[in-house]
């Protein structure tokens, strides 16, 4: 291979890599200085995907949603795991006929680290497949606690990186986390647009966490 050809090939590889990095920096919320825009509840409906994790997480999410003053202005869809029997029942308290996305369960193969990694990968692939078939993407993904938030958030972030959607990710940390973020909270930190915590000690510890009082 002559020198000239090699240089051209190297450029062909390096330029897209540089562009991808620049794009990543552009879309990563953690690379931007946070400036809250003015709150403007418009009459154009906003579509929001709400994760109902299970048990206590679903409980906290519904406690939050019940306080919304303009709930009707949101075009709501709920993400529920197919193994979750109780979230749909709890949802009846606020929705008569909810629109849902059912997330396939990643089968539990065992309890060691290797199978945990395999399980996570499977759940990423399953989530990717589910979301790749959506016709429109939500304006906002609102989630809390459980690990199922992670594949959804990263799949949406990947689509945002590709320019396919502009979904804003909002994460609410569980009330049970007083001293440090949960693993889910920690993993979602770099790609989450806003992170709301419910204890002041957390907001002091992590720069991107906001505390406004107990939300639930």
């Amino acid at each position: 291979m002559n020198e000239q050809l090699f240089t051209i090939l190297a450029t062909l590889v390096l330029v897209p890599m540089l562009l991808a990095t620049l794009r990543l920096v552009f879309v990563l919320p953690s690379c931007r200085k946070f400036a809250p825009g003015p709150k403007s509840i418009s009459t154009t409906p906003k579509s929001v995907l709400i994760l109902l994790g299970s048990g206590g997480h679903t409980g906290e999410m519904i406690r939050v949603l019940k306080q919304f003053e303009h709930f009707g202005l949101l075009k709501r869809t709920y993400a529920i795991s197919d193994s979750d029997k109780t979230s749909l029942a709890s949802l009846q308290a606020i929705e008569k006929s909810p629109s849902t996305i059912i997330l396939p369960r990643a089968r539990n193969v065992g309890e060691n680290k290797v199978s945990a990694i395999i399980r996570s990968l499977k759940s990423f692939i399953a989530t990717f497949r589910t979301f790749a078939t959506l016709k429109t993407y939500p304006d906002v993904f609102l989630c809390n606690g459980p690990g199922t938030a992670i594949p959804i958030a990263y799949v949406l972030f990947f689509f945002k990186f590709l320019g396919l959607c502009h979904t804003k990710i909002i994460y609410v940390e569980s009330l049970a986390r007083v001293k440090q973020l949960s693993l889910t909270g920690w993993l979602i930190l770099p790609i989450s647009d806003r992170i709301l915590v419910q204890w002041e000690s957390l907001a002091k510890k992590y720069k991107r966490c906001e505390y406004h009082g107990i939300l639930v």
Partner: protein
Amino acid sequence: MGGQVLVTCGATVCFDRLVENALDKRFFGLLLRLGFDRLVVQYGKTAEGQELVTRLTQQYTVSDGQFTVDGLHVELLAFDADIVANYTQKSDLVISHGGTGSVLDSLRCNKKLVVVINSALADNHQEEIAEAFAQQGLLEYVRGDLSELLRVTERVCNRSYNKMPSPKGRIVEDVLWS
């Protein structure tokens, strides 16, 4: 005089030690001495919980999940989806497991609350949250045995507690639209 005490294990699993303590003669005695005349014990949906409760109440004449001992009316309840409206609001004191949902239910109803920590749970954030609320003067929590529960229950009945500020969930709506 009179009044109702609610002991709650939450929706799913039975918290054995809490149920054992709640159905102990010494606990009944304390409640009577403090002037209560009703006790509701909510023990969860599992078969194990049902068995435990049946075993602990063998000595009483239980009919329709209820019995009376020395003037204290005891009601045994597996689970009620509407526990807040049907029981929590009607109680004067709540003895609860440390689950976030049950703790919030009591505090939001402004009830006196003793949280019993289930140390058998592996990932224990229950103690963390109970401790944080206790520091704000909203509740008391116990980890130990029956005598600790008796001592703290008596103390809770004789002092007042702070009211929890109303929830700020509306902020999430603002964040969503911003």
